[in-house]
């Protein structure tokens, strides 16, 4: 088996393992180790790492988990990721978790933080509220204190002290990791036939489960192997996927889009891997550096406020241009407020830039791929044949 195949095989095993065996093994390898779960979209993993703990992304149960108990917690009009997360918890698949962070992604994840407080009263649970005001002395000051509170919470949980140097070291490691993930995206945009979207996805997903040092090495090994070889080039069109930043699509859905004739050259999968668009300075006050970089160099998504109307939706237009894409596929989870409320504004931005798009919805357990394949295939044909 080629090295790249071995790596993807490992990623696939990690992805399919809903018992999080790897994280359990990491924890049990050294007494006293702690694991902190986090949900999409963004948390400052640097702080968890600096505490000597393992950040583990909890991105729902996918299409492999039968949700039984979790459905009893939600009405039919709530998306699926919280119910499968509850299912994971109630079936003891998360019993190794020592803490859980719930980012300010939407009302559903926000309220899930309170539900978790009640379901697992013994663990460290924190709602990670990032600022929507981007002034240094307003949102910045607030975020510095939020990070400080997180630092103190983790210190208490671990019975340790997180020094500034610990944090600087973690910042440097995550800077490297983001750089590698971005390089993977650049490579895929340049030669998408070499890096299928499913492989890129699985590599990113592995970053939710592995220690950052190990994930960075995995990225290096994969890219080294992939650039050395070649794969058949297809006559596919190039698309950007938008809307998959929280509840994850089934792997088959990503595969179906590519099989339908679309190279996915950019997406918003697991944005935590690429959230900060510039390296965080490693000199000076590390918490202030994290805050300042967050304020001024974060990716833009549906879950954040855009203060400048002229900029609204331009991040997607830029993603299309940067990756030389020919169109956008909006794929949002059913009942996802951020993605679905944002979509009309993004569509207007694409209309303004004369970029074609299609839209559909999915759930993490969507099983019927034929309609999606047909829709994506028709879109690909229309781009290739008529340039839409």
């Amino acid at each position: 088996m080629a090295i790249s195949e071995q790596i993807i095989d490992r990623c696939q095993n990690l992805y399919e393992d809903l018992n999080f065996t790897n994280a359990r093994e990491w924890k049990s390898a050294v007494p006293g180790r702690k694991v902190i779960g986090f949900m999409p979209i963004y948390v400052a993993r640097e702080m968890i790492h600096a505490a000597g703990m393992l950040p583990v992304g909890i991105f729902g149960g996918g299409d492999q988990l039968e949700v039984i108990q979790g459905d009893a917690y939600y009405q039919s009009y709530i998306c699926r990721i919280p119910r499968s997360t509850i299912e994971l918890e109630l079936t003891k698949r998360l019993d190794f978790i020592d803490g859980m962070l719930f980012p300010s992604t939407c009302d559903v994840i926000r309220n899930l933080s309170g539900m978790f407080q009640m379901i697992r009263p013994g663990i460290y649970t924190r709602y990670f509220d990032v600022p929507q005001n981007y002034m240094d002395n307003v949102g910045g000051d607030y975020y510095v204190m939020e990070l400080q509170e997180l630092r103190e919470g983790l210190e208490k949980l671990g019975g340790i002290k997180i020094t500034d140097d610990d944090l600087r070291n973690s910042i440097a490691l995550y800077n490297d990791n983001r750089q590698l993930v971005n390089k993977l995206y650049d490579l895929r945009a340049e030669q998408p036939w070499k890096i299928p979207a499913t492989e890129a996805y699985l590599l990113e997903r592995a970053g939710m489960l592995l220690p950052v040092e190990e994930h960075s090495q995995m990225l290096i090994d994969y890219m080294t192997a992939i650039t050395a070889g070649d794969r058949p080039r297809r006559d596919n069109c190039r698309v950007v996927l938008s809307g998959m930043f929280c509840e994850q699509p089934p792997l088959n859905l990503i595969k179906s889009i590519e099989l339908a004739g679309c190279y996915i050259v950019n997406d918003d999968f697991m944005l935590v891997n690429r959230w900060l668009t510039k390296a965080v300075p490693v000199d000076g006050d590390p918490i202030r550096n994290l805050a300042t970089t967050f304020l001024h160099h974060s990716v833009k998504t549906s879950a954040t406020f855009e203060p400048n109307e002229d900029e609204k939706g331009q991040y997607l237009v830029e993603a299309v241009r940067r990756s030389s894409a020919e169109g956008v596929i909006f794929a949002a989870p059913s009942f996802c407020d951020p993605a679905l409320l944002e979509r009309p504004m993004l569509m207007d931005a694409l209309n303004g830039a004369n970029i074609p798009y299609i839209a559909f919805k999915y759930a993490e357990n969507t099983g019927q791929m034929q309609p999606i394949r047909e829709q994506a295939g028709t879109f690909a044909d229309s781009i290739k044949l008529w340039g839409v």
Partner: protein
Amino acid sequence: MNAITTSKPLAPRDAKKDQSQIKQKEMIAGNFQELTDAHKQGKKVSYTFVPGNLNELVMCFDMVGNFPEINALQNGMRKKTGAYIMEAERQGHSEDVCTYVKSDLGMIKKGNIGPTGQPLPEPDLLLLSYTGCFTFMKWFELLRHEYKCETAMLHVPYQADGKITDNMRNYVVNQLKQDVIPKLEKISGVKFDIDRLREYLRESAKAEDNLVWVLQSAKHKPSPIDAYFGAIYYVGPIFSAFRGTRDATEYYRLLREEIQERIDQGLGPVTPDGVMKEEKYRLVTEGPPNYTNMYEFWKMFYEDGAVNVASTYAKVGGLYDFGFRHDPEHPLESLANYCLGCYTNLSLPERIKMLVTYINEYQADGLLINSIKSCNSFSAGQLMMMREVEKQTGKPAAFVETDLVDPRYFSAANVKNRLESYFQMIDQKRHAA
């Protein structure tokens, strides 16, 4: 929240009782007229939301406030929202998202004629108080996309751990000082006067005292008010363009007198069909109401002798019954505390604690949750809340599902069936006890 200017009379005539109603109708009508005339009269218009609204602050700049949520619910009561929502969906808005938003956007697309039939002015400022609801943020981005006007964002952190920290309060105050107030000054051309703000906050506190008294009057047996359907009317002025005005102070003074009179006479709440005769069931209610079929919905309660003695919805635009008052001595901090304390900005454990307190203090028979499809902020987690409240109080709970203003999601037969079953369940519990 403000549902007053309906064409249907709320109650049989009674000169004393009508005073507060008449007063409120005049206030609402005046506000819509003021909105219609605002630009002609050189006034600037601010659009803002009910939870976390900064009405006293907006008044300091002589701006007129427009509340899209109130327009949506008023349109819902007038059966206009079905067409507006369909219009927004035709424009590309998802069937999955909040119908308040789609009703508002549909209304704009159809000419922006407000619920009273008067044209609504375009906003000069979108004052986005991001309190307890993520959708607010996208709603005002969508409105800004339509109007291309200035937006002031006030991000109110979530009380995830059941307390307001200094960091949260300072953040809100800093936003007010460094972003919101400068934008209000720039748009209005009026310099901020903190003493003027103090005066308005003083008025607010007076009205809040009387509002709390009115809501807590439901502790009497029989309850002189319905604290869910009736309270929608009672909270109208204080949740909207009137908090901080003398009109609001006067309205709540009148209302309190009228309720006192009802208590003295041992009367139950006023319903659209007159005074409710026999109080059989006392309920605590969680979640917003349905507006498209509100009278039909309400009737299902009062015709079976069910009265809502406390509701969380009456706290969505301000939570006053646990002691908070706007404080003229600490004006900006007080506004921050107000925003941070609105009901949907509370964590689920705190919301449960509040419901349990209500059930105990108001001697309720149980909890009813009206779960709203549009509102994830309210709805996500309500099933767990229901079970926890049942566990902690031993009182039965029930769950119905409707929507705020989408008539497609109101199934009268289903709701009535569930309510009747619930009342039977309460009877059985009583007999068993």
